[in-house]
């Protein structure tokens, strides 16, 4: 990118500037397989046009059938779409849509630990795509809720059957949603916040 000349640098629109009083930001991650609706969900609740941040991952090749003595390296660019919601003049919430594929996870080490919580977005046509993501969140101790994005042609299962299939405990909230609708996406986020709030209540009793 050419950094010379201020006119060439895109930046936030004037109405997208945060107030100077903005003191801190928190983040929520939305995880799920490709095409499950993460970006749609970010876009439907974000106050700014969704943006993309990238990271380049270099991986040493592990194949043995390449040239002798030359180590192959593959560079993969992992993109995350994100949006923003101003909560108060001091507090900002960011939503990151993150690819669920296992090989991308270590790249974002720290992102998940710091997140207040996660929304696992599920497509009942490809339920198994979310298995690894959910397992990773369990291993890392990141609290999460499961949102079933209702695609018109997707098989519909009763929530208890999905809970059994996903092997989720009763306390983990599961909701159906249509992420194209702002109110529906907002309700998913509210479900997550209420769940996190309930964890503080149980935590205070122990």
């Amino acid at each position, binding site marked *: 990118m050419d*950094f010379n000349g*201020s006119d060439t640098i*895109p*930046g*936030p629109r004037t109405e997208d*500037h*945060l*107030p*100077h009083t*903005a003191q*801190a*930001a*928190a983040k929520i991650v939305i995880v799920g397989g490709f095409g499950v609706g993460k970006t749609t969900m970010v876009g439907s609740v974000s106050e700014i046009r969704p*943006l*993309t*941040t*990238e*990271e*380049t991952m270099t991986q040493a090749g592990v194949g043995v059938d390449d040239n002798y003595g030359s180590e192959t390296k593959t560079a993969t660019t992992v993109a*995350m779409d*994100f949006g923003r*919601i101003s*909560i*108060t003049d001091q*507090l900002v*919430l*960011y939503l*990151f849509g993150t690819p669920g594929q296992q090989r991308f996870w270590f790249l974002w080490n*720290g*992102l998940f*630990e*710091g997140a*207040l919580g996660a929304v696992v977005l599920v497509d*009942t046509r490809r*339920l198994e795509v979310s*298995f690894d993501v959910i*397992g*990773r969140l*369990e*291993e*890392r*101790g*990141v*609290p*999460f809720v499961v949102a079933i994005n209702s695609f018109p042609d997707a*098989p519909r*299962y009763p929530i208890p*059957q*999905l809970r059994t*299939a*996903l*092997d989720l405990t009763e306390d983990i909230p599961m909701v159906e949603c249509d992420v194209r609708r*702002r109110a529906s996406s*907002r309700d998913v986020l*509210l479900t997550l*916040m209420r769940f*996190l*709030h309930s964890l*503080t209540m149980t*935590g205070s009793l122990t």
Partner: protein
Amino acid sequence: MTPPRRTRRYPRHEPTPPPKPAKEGEEKNPERLYVVAGAAEDGARAALDLVTLIVARAEAPPSATPEQAAVLRLCTAPLSVAELSAYLSLPFSAMTVLITELLTAELVQARAPIVRQAVPDRSLLEAVMHGLQRL
């Protein structure tokens, strides 16, 4: 029709499956949950999060590189590292190097993010809920 089935996992380093996996996991390594942003010491990279807010403290000095000047122009109002990365089309890791230089030169200020803690901040969660309800 029966959906495919998953098997539950548990937080790592736990010998026995605890009843509340999420809570146990949070407690196992609390110091990692706090991300402290600030000027780098001895040239080390500042611990910057994607949502650390960066604010310019000064205009770009003549010695500033074009990249540094671009950051300072964008940060006249607070902006997250992620947004800076997006607007400047720089990978996150490159962005943190650039911001660390600016922090060291005291040209920008970093406002540390709120990160999940072993004991979650209830008033914070309530503020977020109220904010979402207004959407």
